[in-house]
């Protein structure tokens, strides 16, 4: 990435002795201190790499809650990590004071730095996927980054500080920002902050060096907290994948074994019903009906499990129009008379390179859920929009009961269901399918107002697709 920052103004500073080792937090700082004065940016990297193992030691404690369900648990751990890091890098009250004292010098530099950062980052292809909310989102992000920058110098470096930092880290993870952007940003801000301090401390190079060390310490801590959020996310994802793989294997094996006994039950029920005549006890017919209905239900659960266990790689990728997918999906789902369906597809959307059968299954599932969320009837709206040049979003919106906040995070987990007759596999399977196409599925919901599921797909050919045919 091309940067608009320069470290030139730092290079003219003559070498000076390091601070008191006790103040900098350990003897290992000494050689680093000399390097700092020759080439500050290199020295930061060097110091960081020296410390990396210790950082990872601290970060890698068996702390991450298994499912990140406990963000509260994660935060407590982040607070502990924060205290450990402060102690380890030797971040002292003197550092806090120096940073606070430097803030007036920096205030006028922060916003232009933030603007330059976003000018730069928005040129990068990878950010378009993350920052898709246009100017309003960029403005919000700039404000967050400005407040973050002020916070770095203002403190106070307490529990509230680390909680705010962790929230930002989790936000990065949630929006899918790759860690390299965050690390690059940290490096650029480090240089920019230091550049901004140089003029103000022209007469006191020793104090400037101390301020630089304070900046390094707090930014190293910031980086560690941000990386902790990524680490926690990846560990949790890894565990989840292991769980899903095991679940998939068990499901496939158990489901296959269940097919035969279900078949026998259904066959025997069929044989018995054939033998019933009009004079038979009506209760017998009713019980047989129940046995058959429930055997069918078990069969459908087993089919769902088998479907979930199967690989979701797109099998037949072709150029498909959203219109035909919507039409096909609506044809598969019976719509009650009290549900009003509207379809609003934008003109001129590119064809999608998808497995049409799988994508129809996803949409049919979302439509089914939407209808079931409106037991008293309501409005179901299917619409499409272009997010940027490469992405198309398909929204399925209902005016139903909405999804409670506590269920939103678990919604795509296999076997999670709030429906009386649900298997909890529909959304999990849909998510697998969409992600196998390189897309994303998201949900927004408001209690008693309804929900909106959004499927975001690339108009280009997805990676990892299996058999392909036709133009795309």
């Amino acid at each position: 990435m091309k940067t608009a920052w320069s470290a030139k103004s730092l290079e003219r500073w003559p070498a000076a002795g390091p601070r008191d080792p006790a103040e900098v937090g350990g003897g290992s700082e000494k050689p680093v201190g000399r390097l700092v004065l020759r080439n500050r940016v290199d020295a930061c990297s060097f110091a960081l790499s020296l410390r990396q193992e210790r950082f990872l030691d601290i970060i890698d404690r068996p702390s991450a809650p298994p499912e990140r369900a406990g963000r509260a648990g994660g935060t407590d751990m982040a607070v502990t990590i924060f205290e450990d890091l402060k102690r380890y890098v030797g971040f002292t009250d003197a550092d806090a004071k120096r940073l606070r004292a430097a803030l007036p010098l920096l205030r006028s530099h922060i916003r232009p730095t933030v603007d330059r950062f976003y000018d730069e980052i928005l040129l990068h292809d990878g950010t378009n996927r993350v920052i898709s909310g246009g100017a309003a989102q960029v403005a919000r992000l700039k404000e967050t980054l400005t407040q973050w920058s002020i916070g770095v110098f203002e403190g106070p470096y307490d529990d509230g500080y680390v909680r705010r930092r962790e929230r930002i880290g989790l936000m990065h993870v949630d929006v899918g920002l790759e860690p390299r952007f965050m690390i690059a940003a940290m490096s650029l801000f480090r240089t920019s902050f230091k550049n901004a301090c140089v003029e103000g401390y022209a007469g006191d190079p020793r104090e400037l060096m101390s301020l630089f060390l304070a900046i390094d310490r707090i930014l190293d801590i910031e980086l560690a907290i941000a990386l902790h959020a990524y680490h926690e996310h990846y560990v949790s994802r890894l565990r989840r994948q292991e769980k899903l793989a095991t679940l998939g294997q068990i499901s496939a094996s158990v489901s296959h074994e269940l097919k035969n006994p279900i078949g026998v039950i259904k066959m025997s029920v069929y044989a018995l019903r054939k033998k019933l005549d009009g004079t038979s006890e009506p209760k017998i017919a009713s019980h047989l009906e129940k046995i058959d209905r429930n055997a069918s239900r078990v069969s459908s659960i087993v089919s769902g499990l088998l479907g979930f266990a199967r690989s979701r790689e797109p099998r037949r990728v072709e150029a498909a129009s959203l219109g035909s997918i919507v039409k096909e999906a609506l044809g598969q789902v019976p719509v009650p008379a009290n549900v009003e369906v509207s379809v609003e597809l934008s003109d001129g959307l590119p064809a999608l390179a998808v497995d049409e059968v799988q994508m129809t299954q996803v949409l049919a599932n979302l439509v089914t859920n939407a209808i079931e969320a409106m037991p008293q009837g309501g409005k179901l709206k299917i619409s499409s929009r272009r997010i940027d040049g490469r992405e198309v979003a398909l929204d399925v919106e209902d005016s139903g009961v909405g999804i409670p906040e506590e269920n939103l995070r678990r919604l795509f987990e296999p076997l999670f269901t709030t429906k009386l007759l649900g298997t909890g596999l529909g959304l999990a399977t849909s998510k697998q399918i969409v992600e196998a196409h390189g897309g994303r599925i998201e949900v927004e919901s408001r209690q008693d107002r309804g929900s909106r599921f959004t499927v975001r797909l690339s108009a280009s050919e997805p990676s990892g697709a299996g058999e392909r045919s036709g133009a795309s």
Partner: protein
Amino acid sequence: MTTVLLADDNADFAESLADLLTEDGYSVVIARDGDEAVRLFGESRADVVLLDVTMPRMSGIDALDRIRSVSPSVPAILLTAYESMTFADRVRAAGYDVMLKPVHYPELASWLGALAER
């Protein structure tokens, strides 16, 4: 009377299906595995063959290949609980007729009737 050779290692399934077929006028010979299916076909010269795909000792596909090596035109349906369309598609692409379990009897009976009339 049309003779059906039915091979399935699940005894309950085989007996239930055999009962229904018998009531519908078929003569049914039951085999418990692929090996036995090949042997009983030789003895019974069945008109139609129904084979489960996954059986001990010899799979339904292998058994059918052996049966067809001596009687190439015998109509046959493979039954499988592997619901994967990929699997079913592959078996179909290889030239076999396939029905997924759990079997819906009226559908099987109708298919069997059509095969028996050939």
